[in-house]
């Protein structure tokens, strides 16, 4: 506080001092009879010269920065589309810089050259149709070129992936990424957000885990059982609170009842899922595997399916010049064909510690800037396989979907038996339309 006070006092004193100096200045200019709007010739010329000085420094510093930081700043693009984008960027950059130099140059040179002189009169030149035609048509022609080139690259970047592209899912959540490889069948198993559960989630109240919400026989059962656990735990609490005259709070009670009702609705929707996938329910997911690191094989095309669990994220691969938003409740996609292995890139940038990286590039919360994942590009299928058999990859079904605690999975009864109806099953939305639901049928492209 004392510190703030001192700062304020200093500022106030400084302002008063400057005001006094100004007063003196004003008085002296009053004596000389000069007026603020009459800029005297000398001052006017100084400003005009500064225009030229500024222009030189401006262009000079641009050229310096361009040569120092310009395109060299990110290493050369490491993907096939990245190369196209980089080329297009350079073309546009040259056009744009030419316009920049030309127009800024004219502006400041005229500003310097035509500064006020009492003996001169400005040239009367209100319009000239021919000139105006020129600077309508020429930019239009340049833009046409830019548009055509741009759309060609755009179509290439967003067009369909080739048939042998490897399908991989990137799953975003606050604040990390999970990769799911589609395995031998190159098809991603179904997933549904209602099945997501992970032991560390603070509200799940059980240890059911299914980080990506994959749809399998077991995950559906376990999710229902997990929900049952949660519901009975809540019910117990409700009974306790209702009978407890000391801690009794109607608001709290209502909240818990609402929660139970909500969990019941979710359980109902989960139960309906079993029928929707039929016998194929496990088949696509069986060979999927999850990792917390992305590994790609050079010169192999990858087709990424992007999902988000919570808020918008964006998968941003600066070195591949690739980027796409991850939208909750929607599937977006991105394709990348790396052209340099990590080892090659390390040589190129002369940095033995270099690694590719995936970052999040859509503001997604407090730790947005920490949301990253390592990416490696290897040379051969063998290298990839040994990476896959290493400690990083886990089978999507066997290793990552975990049954909730407190149930005997051996003698598991199908949940209907444990159906819970204390709070009135009569408010299920029986007419819920499941066709419209998002149950992941985009296995592939």
């Amino acid at each position, binding site marked *: 506080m004392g510190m703030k006070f001192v700062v304020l006092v200093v500022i106030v004193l400084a302002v008063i001092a400057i005001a006094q100096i100004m007063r003196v200045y004003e008085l002296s200019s009053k004596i000389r009879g000069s007026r603020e709007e009459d800029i005297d010739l000398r001052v006017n010329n100084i400003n005009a010269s500064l225009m030229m000085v500024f222009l030189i420094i401006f262009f000079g510093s641009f050229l310096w920065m361009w040569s120092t930081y310009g395109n060299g700043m990110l290493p050369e693009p490491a993907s096939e589309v990245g190369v196209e984008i980089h080329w297009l960027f350079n073309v546009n950059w040259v056009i744009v810089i030419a316009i920049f130099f030309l127009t800024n140059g004219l*502006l400041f040179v005229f500003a310097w050259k035509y500064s006020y002189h009492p003996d001169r009169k400005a040239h009367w030149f209100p319009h000239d149709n021919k000139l*105006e035609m020129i*600077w*309508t048509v020429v930019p239009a022609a340049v833009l046409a070129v*830019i548009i055509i080139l741009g759309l060609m690259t755009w179509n290439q970047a967003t067009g369909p992936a080739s048939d042998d592209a490897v399908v991989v899912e990137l799953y975003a959540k606050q604040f990390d990424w999970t990769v799911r490889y589609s395995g031998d069948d190159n098809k991603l198993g179904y997933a549904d*957000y209602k099945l997501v559960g992970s032991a*560390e989630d603070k509200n799940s109240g059980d240890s059911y885990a299914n980080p990506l919400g994959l749809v399998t026989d077991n995950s559906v059962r376990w999710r229902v059982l997990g929900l049952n656990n949660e519901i009975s735990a809540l019910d117990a609490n409700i009974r306790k609170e209702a009978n407890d005259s000391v801690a009794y709070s109607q608001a709290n009670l209502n909240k818990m009842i609402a929660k139970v009702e909500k969990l019941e609705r979710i359980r109902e929707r989960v139960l309906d899922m079993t029928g929707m996938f039929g016998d194929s329910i496990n088949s696509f997911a069986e060979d999927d595997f999850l990792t917390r690191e992305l590994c790609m094989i050079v010169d192999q095309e990858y087709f990424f399916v992007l999902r988000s669990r919570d808020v918008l994220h964006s998968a941003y691969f600066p070195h591949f010049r690739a980027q796409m938003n991850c939208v909750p409740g929607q599937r977006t996609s991105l394709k990348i064909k790396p052209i340099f292995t990590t080892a090659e890139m390390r040589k190129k*940038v002369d940095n033995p510690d270099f690694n590719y990286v995936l970052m999040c590039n859509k503001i997604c919360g407090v730790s947005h800037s920490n949301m990253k994942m390592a990416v490696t590009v290897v040379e051969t299928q063998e290298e990839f396989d040994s990476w896959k058999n290493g400690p990083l990859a886990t089978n999507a079904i066997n290793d990552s979907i975990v049954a909730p605690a407190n149930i005997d999975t051996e003698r598991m009864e199908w949940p209907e038996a444990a159906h819970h109806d204390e709070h009135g099953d009569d408010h299920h939305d029986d007419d819920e339309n499941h066709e419209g639901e998002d149950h992941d049928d985009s296995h592939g492209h």
Partner: protein
Amino acid sequence: MSAAAHTDHGHHHKESFITKYIFSQDHKMIGKQFLITAIFMAVVAVILSVLFRIQLAWPGESNSVLSFFLGDTWAPEGILDRGMYLGLVTIHGTIMVFFVLTGGLSGTFSNLLIPLQCGARDMASGMLNMISYWLFLLSSILMLYSLFLETGPASAGWTVYPPLSVYEEAIPGSGAGMTMWLLSMTIFVASSLLGSLNYIVTVLNLRTKGMKMTRLPLTIWAFFVTAVLGVLSFPVLVSAVVLMLMDRTLGTSFYVNDTIIAGEVLEQSGGSPVLFEHLFWFLGHPEVYIVLLPALGLTSEIVSTNARKPIFGYRAMIGSILAIGFLSFIVWGHHMFISGMNPFLGGVFVFTTLLIAIPSAIKVFNYITTLWRGNIKYTPAMLFSIGLVSSFITGGVTGIILADSALDIAVHDTYFVVAHFHVVMGLSAIFGMFAGVYHWFPKMYGKMMNAKLGMVHFWLTLVSAYGVFFPMHFVGIGGAPRRYYDYSVYEGFDSNQFDMIMDLNVVISIFAIIGALAQAIFLFNFFYSTFKGQKAVQNPWKGNSLEWTTPVEHMHGNWPGEIPEVHRWPYDYSKPGAAEDYIPQTVPLAEGEEEH
């Protein structure tokens, strides 16, 4: 057209302090109220930007400036809190775009100049005009107040994309802070709509005799089109805001779909965040022209007056303003190339967006040709106008890159974007606003601002502004995402990159601090001159437009007698055959003189 303008209102009654300075319905006073409020908001927004620039240049280092402003809550031990970093960025952006450059710029100059340059005694409705200001003040106060909330201000960025902005559990600022943001913006929009409707009606109905649309100063054309843009686009923002409020409070799902927040599976299903992006940018893009056009209008006038030459291509300038206004409604998708929108639609937006470059280029060339063989007087206003043309060029050309969807894949949401929009929108509009203040200060306060201080202010501002935003392009091309608390992400991956980003960030922040301090010169000059400045003469810049025919002392109704009649356009500077180098609009055409 001019019947209303010609009836003498006979406003000669004595006013009390309250009706004159506080609940004033006089457009000149309301303009000044907008200006003072906007200056205050701008100071706050600049301070916020300096605070987060300190973090970006010296991440994680203890800094007493941070403790001074943010205290232990948000900068424990002088280190900026991560959440507050995003809060500062969000409120900085919101204040700059809406409160300084929309409310402040249009509010000040449309109010001051529309009646004066059209030849009207006041706005069509003084009452609505007054309400417009008070709503603006209220929304400003709410926005500032949100900085002091326990959970922090809105922190999802000024674009407030859902679901981040919907759930408090996703980021603390989306609790009370976001509610306050939504409330403030709704009131802001109400203010802006009342203002805009008033401007439109006044321009259309209250022009004086002889003031054809084709004799209007370009300022008025710019304000007019700006107001039309505002009336057509701001209501869409309000709808977007209302739907968001419903998602937040009633559990509807316009923007949210299959979301899990903080481990809780939510039932809201069927909406889409992309819908919000469409609605937001349907306002958001016209908004950048709402910010920019008034600045272009002001400087057209200033450049012509101080080059002592007619503005080149008056009709082309009007045509460009109209074309920009129209096109600005069909380009919003360029903010969404990688949102998951259909790539074909992206292609269409590439086309429409690049079309806008044509009228923009016309404007630039017309400005430059106006300077050619002029006789340029460097008043501070003229200096800032040249600054505007330069930043409009520099920022405009990078727009060509961003409009190209294929390139946007690489630079979207990086500092390249931040550099682009600051130069083309931020700098241009701020320069235009400074130019306007220096030029019309005598009209507002009857005093002159100190010209030499103005020049020092200009050169320091120009150099530091480019010093801040020029290197930012390279930081962006180098792959630095925006809205990042720090760039430690690169440390373990690409250390070359990290070093370069950090080097440039230090340079940028130093310029930012110099630039911010330089604004003290302006503030001092402004407030000193309002009280002690040299007394102004009626027409200090020897201008042609009507405002320079009113008396220096403000009066209700603007002209003591009849409203003058207009006989020519406002750009007869250095016309051959005329004795003086300017001919005010009120001077009838001489025998055999052509209009222009």
